[in-house]
């Protein structure tokens, strides 16, 4: 392309971008960010209220968020479900209460397979998307509360606290996945501004939050409109549509896009919660620095990793027995959790069992990589090899090589994760073969 052609072409792309972003105002993200900011502002206006009143105001705003992003009917349903679950845990003693709690949890999990896909949401795809995202996180929080209260003896939480923690609007749509206990532990004293000094500090906090909010929005928009535009073409052609260097860069682009978008959502959740008196945990800690897949999962979607460790891996036995099997089961559970999310959007007819393989393969790839990493670190038979590496390869080089290998593996693992449901999983293998000049 000549230099003279760049200007008009760029102008045309920008025109696309403008309208794309303008019409994207109806996307789930735009609604979440806009309505979230509005509700946070109302929450700030509730500062003069006493603590209990302020928290009830926040519960009301959580219900309003559900009504705005979904529908009043969905909001009512979610609140009634939460009230029923809280009553089952707190008011029904012994085994009947436990059974009732799990029946309620299983009912929420199984409705996509039992009911038509538009039962709760109509045929509006954005509302289906919202309900799918939200119930993903909400269900995990509900499970955590049942397990914590019934098996781990954590303190009783009032209905207000439970509703606020499980339906908390800044984190309800896309996490971080925080349990009721974590929310209670992180809750600050709220916007209790009693002196001029505190007012100044609170003003700064709001400004910093606004900055992080803007940063999160910018990340999501830029990644959405500029990255991973070739995904469908590459999947549809098994990678044939692009050159080899482009194909090698593509998993990196997938990784980058996902990180930028997902961390943008987290930035917004943190920014919305902080002025309301809640410190939402960070969800990412520079995952590209990981030197092993196990470390990656301590740096990527950290809240979900903690949840899986606490409520799947450790109850299975953790490292004490069948550690490798437990790792595989945990990552399989993670893959199936993503399958469940997609089922809620597309329905069983649009997302049949054959399409589930993408998430399952992704989960097993990560699980197997962690098992392999453990074997490499612990197997006595490999000690001579490890010792030779320690002796002959400088620590700095080992460090960076481990980072590059981990980054490359994780990037490749995103390929089946992003497989569109209407494309056969074979496309992933064809892409991988083409990457090594075999396709």
């Amino acid at each position: 392309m000549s230099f003279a052609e760049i200007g008009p072409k760029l102008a045309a792309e920008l025109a696309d971008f403008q309208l794309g972003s303008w019409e994207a105002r109806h996307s789930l993200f735009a609604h979440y960010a806009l309505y979230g900011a509005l509700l946070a502002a109302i929450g700030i206006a509730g500062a003069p209220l006493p603590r209990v009143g302020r928290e009830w105001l926040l519960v009301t705003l959580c219900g309003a968020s559900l009504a705005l992003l979904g529908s009043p009917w969905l909001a009512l349903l979610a609140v009634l479900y939460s009230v029923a679950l809280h009553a089952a845990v707190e008011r029904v003693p012994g085994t009947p209460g436990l059974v009732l709690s799990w029946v309620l949890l299983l009912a929420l999990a199984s409705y996509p397979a039992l009911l038509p896909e538009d039962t709760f949401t109509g045929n509006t795809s954005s509302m289906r998307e919202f309900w799918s995202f939200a119930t993903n996180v909400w269900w995990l929080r509900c499970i955590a509360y049942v397990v914590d209260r019934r098996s781990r003896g954590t303190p009783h939480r009032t209905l207000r606290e439970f509703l606020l923690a499980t339906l908390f609007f800044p984190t309800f749509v896309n996490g971080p996945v925080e349990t009721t206990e974590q929310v209670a532990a992180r809750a600050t004293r709220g916007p209790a501004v009693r002196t001029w000094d505190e007012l100044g500090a609170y003003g700064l906090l709001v400004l910093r939050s606004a900055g992080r909010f803007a940063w999160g929005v910018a990340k999501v928009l830029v990644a959405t409109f500029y990255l991973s535009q070739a995904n469908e073409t590459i999947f549809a052609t098994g990678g044939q549509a692009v050159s080899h260097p482009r194909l090698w860069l593509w998993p990196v682009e997938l990784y980058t896009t996902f990180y930028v978008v997902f961390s943008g959502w987290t930035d917004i959740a943190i920014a919305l919660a902080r002025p309301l008196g809640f410190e939402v945990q960070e969800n990412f800690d520079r995952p590209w620095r990981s030197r092993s897949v196990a470390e990656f999962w301590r740096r990527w979607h950290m809240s979900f990793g903690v949840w899986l460790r606490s409520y799947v891996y450790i109850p299975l036995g953790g490292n004490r027995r069948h550690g490798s099997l437990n790792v595989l089961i945990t990552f399989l559970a993670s893959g199936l959790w993503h399958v469940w999310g997609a089922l809620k959007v597309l329905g069983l007819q649009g997302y049949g069992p054959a399409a589930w393989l993408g998430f399952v393969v992704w989960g097993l790839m990560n699980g197997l990589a962690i098992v392999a990493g453990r074997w490499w670190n612990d197997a006595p038979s490999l000690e001579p090899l490890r010792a030779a590496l320690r002796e002959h390869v400088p620590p700095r080089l080992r460090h960076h090589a481990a980072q590059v290998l981990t980054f490359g593996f994780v990037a490749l693992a995103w390929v089946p994760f992003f497989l569109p449901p209407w494309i056969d999983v074979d496309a992933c293998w064809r892409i991988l073969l083409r990457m090594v000049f075999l396709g």
Partner: protein
Amino acid sequence: MQRSEPATSAGIIGPRRAAPRRIVAACGIALALLLVEVIARIEGPRVCVGRDDVLLSPDDEVGWTFTPELTVTVDPCAPPGTRRTWTAPVSINAQGLHDQPWPYAKPRGEVRVLLLGDEVADGVGIARADRLSVRLAHLTDRTRGARVAAINGLIPGYGPAESLRFLEKRGIRYAPDVVVLLLDPESDVAATLDPPAAQQFAADAPPAGPALAADAPPAAQELAADAPPAAQELAADVPPASGLLALSASTRWLAGRPDAAPARAIRLDEPRPISDEAERARAQARLVELVQQIADTSRAAGAGFAIAIAPRCPLAPAPSAASLCGALEGIAPCIDLGPVFTDLAATKPGPSELCLPGQPRWGRDAHFMASHRIWDTLGASQLWPPQVVRGHRL
């Protein structure tokens, strides 16, 4: 949560203790009001998709277009209290098209496709990325070939006569490389004998009297503002705000009044259905004449020309469609989309989204199928310039 309030600072008493909190509350309320205004401006008011008086505006040059610069959210006209099945954003450009702003001057290296016809594929009611025009452009591999811009010239009520007028007055100014005419085998044939009538009336006054032909001089179409009330449902729902409130998008949003409400409103009437075969033959002959004129105008402007038979929803087998395509194939390549949709409905597992519920407009699946078939027809007929390369976007 279980935590204590901060200890009271010594020396801070009475009004001074309350003042910082009041300031925070006031700032929160002000911020909330500001955000309501921002949201109202971004979302636009919610308008029923059947509100021609809001969505369409008279145009002195081409009869009518979408209301320029309109931003609204449309829903399917469900009565109050019933469940709405969908909502969709609608942003109209300054030229009255449901599309992004397109400069008339074509950037160097760009290939332009101009879509002409009625509302079936105008995309009102579905997301932009799913629209026929956008999909058609995205089917092209931009990295290996030219950038294709598909201009959505589909406007409700446009039959062949209106499309011809639009092409002559506006369309050729876009310098299209290809013109694609979408024809409904029923209403567009009928419209050749009974052109769609467009009643105009002052925005705050209801229409009256017989419908006026769309190709009458614009001045003659305007009706007096004091016309007798005949269709109150088209008048504004609430009195307009005045003073500062008039500047507020949130008050207009609450009132359901769009930012760019047309000064003169319009309402389209359906053409009279064809009654017998003799009339159909006359109508079809007239249609062929008009399509020939569109083809001639396009080719004179240096553009290729193709026809797509695009049935309205609800989709039903139209026996005349095949013969229509046959009659027009001598003029230009023709693709009949009716059988394409029938096949999809029969073979796709699960419910298809060929139509928007209760609308003549197509749903996502119809736009998807139409974009692929039209692209392939243009390719098979060698109407694409050589620098256009087929991509694989789904």
